[in-house]
């Protein structure tokens, strides 16, 4: 099975993150950048499908030069190769444009199965799987907590607000995963060494038949008008429990009219 995993490099959500003062785009230079956490689960799932059914796993990333670090990290977990779509013009692309570029790259890779995280920790839009499926004319099985592959048949269990659903599709398909699906492996030393030699192909939008003016802010269908840091919350009253902590909590809730 020809599997492609989408990997996005994002600012570490465990650290302070910011937008750039000069350009309304994510500050990726001064941030600590990591693989989007949910994508690690997608990589793990791809490796498990490969282990059970054979085939090849390709990592696909769109992002600046430095996203190469995320690609090496991803490869160290075990995928076979990577494609990096990189170009300065891509900075500031919105989801719609990103889906166009990724769909074009997927068009050259012709995967049976595309795996990705259900959302990125920076944008958190949860739309990429559906956008790609729409562009490629293939199925999207979103928010998987379990994936079963049987020949060309895919079955996914997905959490919903009221319970869960079982959904099926035939390859080719995009499957997005939550962090409930598996436990990603840590890269082994051998894996880290091997990753250095794995092939990484770089592509520009032009290589995919997309002009620079069609990506980045120029090609976006949305624009950030302004951004500001949210004023930090003021911490309020803090009391120590002297045997009446519960009563004091209720006093507060009453004063705020919640009780």
């Amino acid at each position: 099975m020809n599997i492609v995993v989408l990997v996005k490099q994002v600012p570490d959500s465990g650290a302070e993150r910011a937008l750039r003062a000069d350009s309304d785009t994510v500050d990726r230079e001064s941030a600590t950048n990591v693989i989007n956490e949910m994508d690690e689960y997608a990589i793990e799932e791809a490796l498990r499908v490969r282990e059970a059914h054979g085939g090849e796993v390709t990592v696909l990333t769109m992002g600046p030069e430095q996203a190469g670090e995320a690609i090496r990290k991803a490869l160290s977990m075990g995928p076979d190769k990577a494609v990096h779509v990189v170009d300065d013009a891509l900075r500031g692309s919105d989801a719609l444009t990103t889906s166009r570029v990724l769909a074009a790259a997927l068009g050259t890779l012709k995967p049976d199965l595309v795996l990705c995280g259900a959302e990125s920790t920076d944008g958190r839009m949860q739309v990429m799987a559906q956008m790609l499926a729409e562009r490629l004319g293939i199925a999207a099985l979103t928010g998987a907590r379990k994936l079963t592959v049987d020949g060309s048949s895919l079955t996914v269990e997905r959490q919903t607000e009221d319970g869960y659903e079982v959904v099926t599709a035939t390859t080719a398909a995009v499957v997005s995963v939550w962090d409930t699906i598996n436990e990603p492996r840590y890269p082994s030393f051998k894996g880290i060494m091997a990753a250095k030699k794995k092939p990484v192909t770089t592509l520009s939008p032009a290589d995919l038949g997309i002009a620079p003016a069609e990506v980045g802010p120029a090609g976006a269908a949305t624009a950030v008008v302004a951004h500001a840091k949210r004023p930090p919350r003021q911490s309020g009253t803090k009391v120590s429990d002297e045997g009446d902590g519960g009563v004091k909590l209720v006093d507060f809730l009453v004063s705020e009219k919640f009780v």
Partner: protein
Amino acid sequence: MVVEQAGGEVKKVTLEVLTLARQFGSPAAVVLGRPGTAAALLDKLAEYGAAKVYVAESDDLEAYLVAPKAAVMASLVREVGPAAVLFGSTQEGKEIAGRLAVKLDSGLLTDVTAVAEDGTATQPVFAGSAIVTAKVTRGVPLVAVRPNSLTPVPAPAEATVSPVPVVVDESAKLARVVERVAEPKGARPELTEASIVVSGGRGVASAANFAVVEELADLLGGAVGASRAAVDSGFYPHQFQVGQTGKTVSPQLYVALGISGAIQHRAGMQTSKVIAAVNKDPEAPIFDLADFGVVGDLHRVVPQAAEEIRNRS
């Protein structure tokens, strides 16, 4: 705007979106579901100001994931030419909107908490640590509104019902739903829609102890949430997880019990209106956010609070 319903009732986020839409004119609501879905929803939609209700009903809309709904929306939008299309910023709302954005080559903004008169939208980003204002610059603006961003206000209208033909081609029938399993959720409100959320963290210390969290939630009429640490420890199911890899909530009151307040958790609750916390560590970062904090053992403080609420009511 797209109507979301669950169990034959209009979802609260839909009423919020209707309330928002009324700022800009008389909104039309779109019901997408199996035959017979709309009948139970019309009164509520009219009560909240839907001037028109487009009704698209077909088994095809329920038998597959969102693609058929997006297909119906695309043809409706092309026919009617609305000023904008609004959705609830829920998983389904965003997924329909994502497909629609591609079909219509239109800009999509998600997690919007307010829309100004000129159409610019406010979005909290990075765990609510920054606020972005953004606009759609191409196509029909597609705007997904985060639940609990505003209070739904009734404004009765005569909802004219207009049936919409459902034509779904095979390309939208690729992701088939073969089974839907409802898990009993009891009488508690849905987590992202609840006005009050009471969450437990690692400090709750066991699955059995979550009864303490549930008791307080029930006394306050709230939903129960859990931190990632509590979920990873197996204390509470994943669908109740609040934070970076779980749900984002923005209730009137958020009560954090035994939650330290790691940045990943704050990502999911930082925009709550009022925050109260109980934690035995006086240095826990949750206290930096809390309007009211109790430094103490939640296993003593919370049962006492529950008893006190019972006594006062």
